[in-house]
């Protein structure tokens, strides 16, 4: 059988075997002991032609309910946002996506400069001094922040707010386990980090305090009040932040964050069933040499031309091996490029406008829910998310919404026992007034029907 990715002809094979001085390809595998030799072919599905495979996989894809056909009110860390079409055109340029890590700067200036620009945009949005070239995702970036803080402070305790994304907290715990670091959760109060508890808990063993801004419930935490508590204890202040929100919110850097991390998925990156997304990692200048992952720096060649290189590599695994600041090697470069293009397209004004639209539309959703008589769990400003008490099973409610062409919110009871029956509803700029009204109307109708059947 011929394969379109394999150019070898019988003639090539014959000539090459002659040069090598063997009779058959098989001889080249004679160093594999007979006992471990695999005989025959894998028992896997047979090869398919291009058109029959695309047909099969298109059918498989159509079994999934996507956010193009359904109006999605599901967020919880991953959002359906405006993706400028130009993004996909840029990342489809194969000079970018078929290259690897820019180890040879002379023929990788494109990638290196694009990453330098990404680092700048993340630093700008977060208000931090510098940012790295990307991490796997927001969750692992937060975990790496914990490792950095523990190393820097030589302390073995991480305090993480219960209002941080539950899956990110799980990942923080996993990384900490390897380093024998304790992870302790700061409880909630009215949907935010409990300040009294924080004051009680922070001590001379605390390496860092982790706060999400806006938090998992869409509440905007009071970073100004938290910062002195953290720093007085000699701990590092870590903020996990949705960078899209920072178009309109005062950035963590302004509030004295030492490390700001998060996921750039809201900027032009598809939801893609949870990945690949794009973690980012930003720090103060003081922590520059402790950052995990790759950094691109500016320099010059012998004729004084500006150019870009991977720099401060003495931190990294390929140089330092077991003494490296992290084991990360491959990162999310192509998605960092996607996010850069989206941030560029939005630009200075668009970044603000999109953030305000998200706040405004979330606020509208909240008002409409209230009007319909629903109880909103937490007061205050909301970004993207609002928590509503549904008076029913979230799962059943979502099933009813699905029938009407909508993907409902996240069942908070899955992560917080105390919020059983609460739905975390996400609203982005993509949701029209009409869709929001229809959503409220539908859950109202569902609950009324439920109450009627119980009466």
């Amino acid at each position: 059988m011929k394969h379109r990715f394999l150019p070898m002809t019988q003639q090539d094979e014959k000539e090459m075997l002659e040069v090598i001085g063997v009779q058959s390809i098989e001889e080249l595998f004679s160093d594999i002991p007979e006992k471990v030799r695999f005989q025959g072919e894998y028992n896997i599905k047979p090869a398919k032609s291009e058109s029959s495979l695309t047909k099969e996989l298109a059918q498989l894809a159509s079994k999934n309910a996507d956010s193009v056909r359904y109006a999605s009110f599901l967020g919880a860390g991953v959002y359906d946002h405006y993706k400028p079409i130009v993004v996909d055109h840029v990342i489809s340029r194969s000079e970018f996506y078929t290259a690897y890590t820019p180890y040879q700067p002379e023929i990788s200036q494109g990638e290196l400069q694009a990453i330098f620009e990404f680092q700048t945009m993340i630093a700008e949005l977060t208000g931090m001094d510098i940012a790295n070239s990307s991490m796997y995702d927001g969750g692992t970036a937060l975990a790496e922040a914990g490792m950095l803080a523990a190393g820097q402070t030589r302390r073995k305790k991480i305090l993480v707010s219960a209002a941080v994304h539950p899956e990110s907290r799980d990942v923080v715990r996993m990384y900490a386990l390897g380093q024998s670091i304790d992870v302790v959760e700061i409880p909630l109060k009215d949907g935010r980090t409990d300040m009294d508890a924080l004051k009680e808990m922070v001590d001379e063993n605390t390496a860092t305090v982790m706060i999400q801004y806006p938090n998992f419930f869409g509440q905007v935490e009071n970073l100004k009040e938290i910062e002195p508590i953290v720093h007085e204890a000699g701990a590092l202040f870590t903020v996990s932040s949705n960078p899209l929100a920072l178009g309109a919110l005062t950035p963590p850097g302004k509030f004295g964050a030492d490390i700001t991390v998060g996921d750039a998925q809201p900027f032009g990156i598809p939801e893609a069933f949870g990945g690949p997304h794009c973690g980012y990692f930003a720090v103060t200048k003081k922590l520059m040499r402790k950052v995990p992952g790759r950094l691109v720096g500016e320099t010059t060649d012998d004729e004084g031309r500006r150019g870009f290189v991977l720099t401060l590599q003495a931190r990294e695994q390929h140089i330092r091996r077991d003494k490296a600041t992290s084991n990360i090697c491959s990162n999310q470069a192509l998605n960092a490029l996607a996010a850069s293009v989206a941030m560029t397209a939005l630009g200075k004004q668009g970044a603000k406008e999109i953030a305000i639209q998200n706040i405004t539309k979330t606020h509208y959703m909240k008002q409409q829910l209230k009007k319909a008589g629903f109880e909103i769990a937490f007061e205050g400003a909301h970004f993207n998310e609002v928590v509503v008490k549904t008076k029913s099973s979230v799962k059943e409610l979502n099933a009813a919404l699905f029938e009407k062409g909508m993907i409902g919110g996240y069942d908070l009871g899955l992560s917080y026992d105390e919020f059983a029956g609460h739905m975390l509803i996400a609203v982005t700029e993509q949701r029209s007034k009409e869709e929001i009204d229809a959503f409220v109307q539908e859950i109202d109708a569902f609950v009324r029907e439920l109450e009627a059947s119980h009466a």
Partner: protein
Amino acid sequence: MHKDNQPLIFEMTKEGRVGYSLPELDVPEVDLSELLGQELVREELAELPEVSELDIMRHYTALSNRNHGVDSGFYPLGSCTMKYNPKINESVARYSGFANIHPLQEESTVQGAMELMFDLQEHLKEITGMDEVTLQPAAGAHGEWTGLMMIRAYHEANGDTHRTKVIVPDSAHGTNPASATVAGFETVTVKSNEHGLVDLEDLKRVVGDDTAALMLTNPNTLGLFEEDILEMAAIIHGVGGKLYYDGANLNAVMSKARPGDMGFDVVHLNLHKTFTGPHGGGGPGSGPVGVKADLIPYLPKPLLVKKGEGYAFDYDRPQSIGRVKPFYGNFGINVRAYTYIRTMGPDGLKKVTEYAVLNANYMMRRLAPHFDLPYDRHCKHEFVLSGRRQKKLGVRTLDMAKRLLDFGYHPPTIYFPLNVEEAMMIEPTETESKETLDDFIDAMIQIAREVEENPEIVQNAPHTTVINRLDETKAARKPILRYHKPTDSE
């Protein structure tokens, strides 16, 4: 390519230009400072660019022209498996039903995605000879750490808390010792012998009842198959340790030898290497991990399982190490890898390995007269040359790598593995034609000749790129890691 600087996108900014189109705000406006409190309303806007859509396309097109990918030309970067990235993968991953689905949707609404993931797991189990697979890790190093955390949990569950050491060969990828450290282990190095293989005597010396695992790449980073693999497995298992397979080099042995049959207990794969998820300029990758039956309870959660006619995520796994990543891994890359495997089928994957190995051996034999070949035996998918002959003439491997740029090639991996002086690690892959290999070989031979006759041309290379060699010392000494908008006084 012209040699002028491409301006930074920030330097192209003009106030008032936009490159976006947001939906009209169709709900009542709000007063931000009232809603948030004045302190939380951003005062100084982030200095993002202000450019039109054409500006964006021109800028990134110019940048792409300053970048070399596999589609631009030959890219024999050893240990990275820079094979062709099939375009069908890119199309399929962009199907809306794969790209625009949310990880927390009701499982009943994403059965197609879960079916694909499950079938990929089944294919990877067969390919590796392992009993179960998780797709959660985001990349190879992440997979290594995940595997080591499972080994750690396994030993702890057996009351074996004194197993603190992970053995790594001196030729190993840097991620191996780094991952061991992150997982809380101490790294012990085992030496290579004169054949470039793990020294069994040294291995016997370093193992003990404190051994948690041996991490091994097979074939190793010299491109040589570790023939004593069964003896090594016996030594490690004999002291109660586990055997870890770094799958970076799987392209060398598909359908020829499976890690599971060699005695390995844990395997990670780099789907962006062997299975053509594109390298993306450095990622995203995907690093699934396969395990033998006794380690299944420790797999990260959730585990994707078949349930009746459909698929479900199983969270009820009390011995699981926990969650290594939000959600279920780099699904988009997994879609690409699955598309590739289904395109190739069993016959295709076997040929992939055969031609990758044939190409590497052909290149090695043709280049051997011109450079030093430290280990003269059949290689697998890659081989390592030494530039020590040229070094004596005052030309370093780095210089020869830079000279290759003038011929339009991406150079091999250089100065790795660490146990070969002036190393050049060459991996052609199976998707390159004999003509491409011959052209590259001719360029290498010409460079070897230049080293003897006209070394300056090599020492001063490259001559044709958009930029000359860059001052890396300056970059590290006074790091400039971002652009700053000039202030009015500047």
